[in-house]
């Protein structure tokens, strides 16, 4: 009997030993798994951005772009995020929406800026989207929803333009799963606190827009696709409460005011 147990244990040990020995090799590097992913992501980012570029109007007003860039750069600098890898685009559309595409493309609709009561609300949404990019949620969602093989076939030109359009639309109009959303919310609060931006207005923004009476409900893509806004607002408040810091606005009141006036004039 003892011999059998010993032999059994040795067999188990042999398997785990083999596994352990094999883990000492960097297989990811050998099989170039990451490179494939990086290249695929770059190509997908271009493909999806092309879809929006063709169908929407990109803003090129210097003041609008400069103001948004100030917010994004401020958040990136305070959180040691490489600003260069983010490609921010502002589109002239009344929907209250912002979303991330592969390879660091961050799309912001003018409707979101116009419906933000203050710059902290906008900074909150931007931080949330940067968090999705930094946490690699975009690629995770794509792989989960449509599969790596379809994604690769898109980049090699073996997929129809309709599939690419539909996938791009899906990225702009559907949320990530609950855990990923929460992870991005918490990360966004961290980003804001590090950047001395008050996260409370971000929570208020969620509260405010979850009210159905709000005048802009029909354009509320960002909120309608992000479920349980009230619950999210609550844990954002709860999480940020414990970490008191001094808050400072990123843009001056004049710049923020001018930004909204400029956008209103373009509607």
């Amino acid at each position, binding site marked *: 009997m003892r011999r059998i147990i010993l032999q059994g244990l040795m067999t188990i040990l042999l398997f785990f030993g083999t596994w352990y020995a094999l*883990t000492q090799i960097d297989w990811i590097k050998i*099989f170039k798994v990451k490179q494939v992913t990086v290249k695929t992501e770059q190509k997908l980012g271009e493909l999806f951005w092309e879809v929006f570029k063709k169908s929407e109007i990109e803003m090129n007003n210097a003041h609008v772009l400069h103001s948004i860039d100030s917010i994004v750069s401020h958040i990136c600098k305070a959180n040691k995020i490489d600003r260069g890898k983010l490609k921010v685009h502002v589109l002239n559309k009344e929907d209250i929406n912002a979303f991330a595409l592969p390879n660091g493309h961050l799309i912001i609709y003018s409707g979101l800026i116009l419906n933000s009561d203050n710059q902290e609300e906008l900074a909150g949404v931007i931080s949330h989207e940067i968090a999705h990019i930094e946490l690699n949620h975009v690629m995770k969602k794509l792989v989960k929803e449509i599969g790596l093989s379809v994604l690769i076939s898109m980049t090699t030109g073996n997929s129809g333009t309709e599939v690419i359009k539909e996938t791009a639309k899906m990225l702009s109009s559907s949320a990530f799963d609950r*855990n990923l959303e929460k992870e991005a919310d918490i990360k966004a609060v961290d980003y804001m606190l590090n950047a001395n931006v008050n996260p409370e207005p971000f929570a208020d923004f969620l509260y405010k827009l979850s009210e159905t009476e709000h005048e802009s409900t029909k354009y509320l893509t960002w909120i309608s696709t992000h479920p349980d806004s009230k619950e999210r607002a609550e844990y954002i408040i709860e999480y940020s409460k414990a970490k008191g810091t001094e808050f400072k606005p990123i843009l001056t009141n004049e710049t923020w005011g001018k930004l909204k006036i400029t956008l209103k004039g373009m509607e």
Partner: protein
Amino acid sequence: MIHIKKFSYEPGEHEAEAASSSYLMSLIAIIVGVPLPIVNLIATLIFYLGNKKSTYFVRWHCTQALLSQLSMLFINSFGFWWTISILFTDETITSRYIAYVIAAIIFNLTEFVATIYTAIQTRKGIHIEWWFYGSLTNLICRSKS
């Protein structure tokens, strides 16, 4: 790892054929069973149950074939669910995962080769006892006489 031992009696032609089939059964099941790990176990289990009332030699080899599938079931099931979680959840491909797959392939191949060898030998009426599984089978499967 594999020992040729003398069985308590000389198996007949019919017995050798049935015993050899139990390994062939698991061999076919391995091919299907790598992506769907439960198949190997079910196949050998059916064969085992079907030969429960057979002669000692046949029963012995059916038991050894069944037991050998059990450990592969654990290894392959873990690999199977790990792969599923990579495909459908946030889990990503890591060096640890690739190392596991390679280790699983090595063990599956070893078992595959050992199974072919044992199937050939038992067909000739030669009694083969595997490391660990042979001793375990001796413990479970006893002669009725």
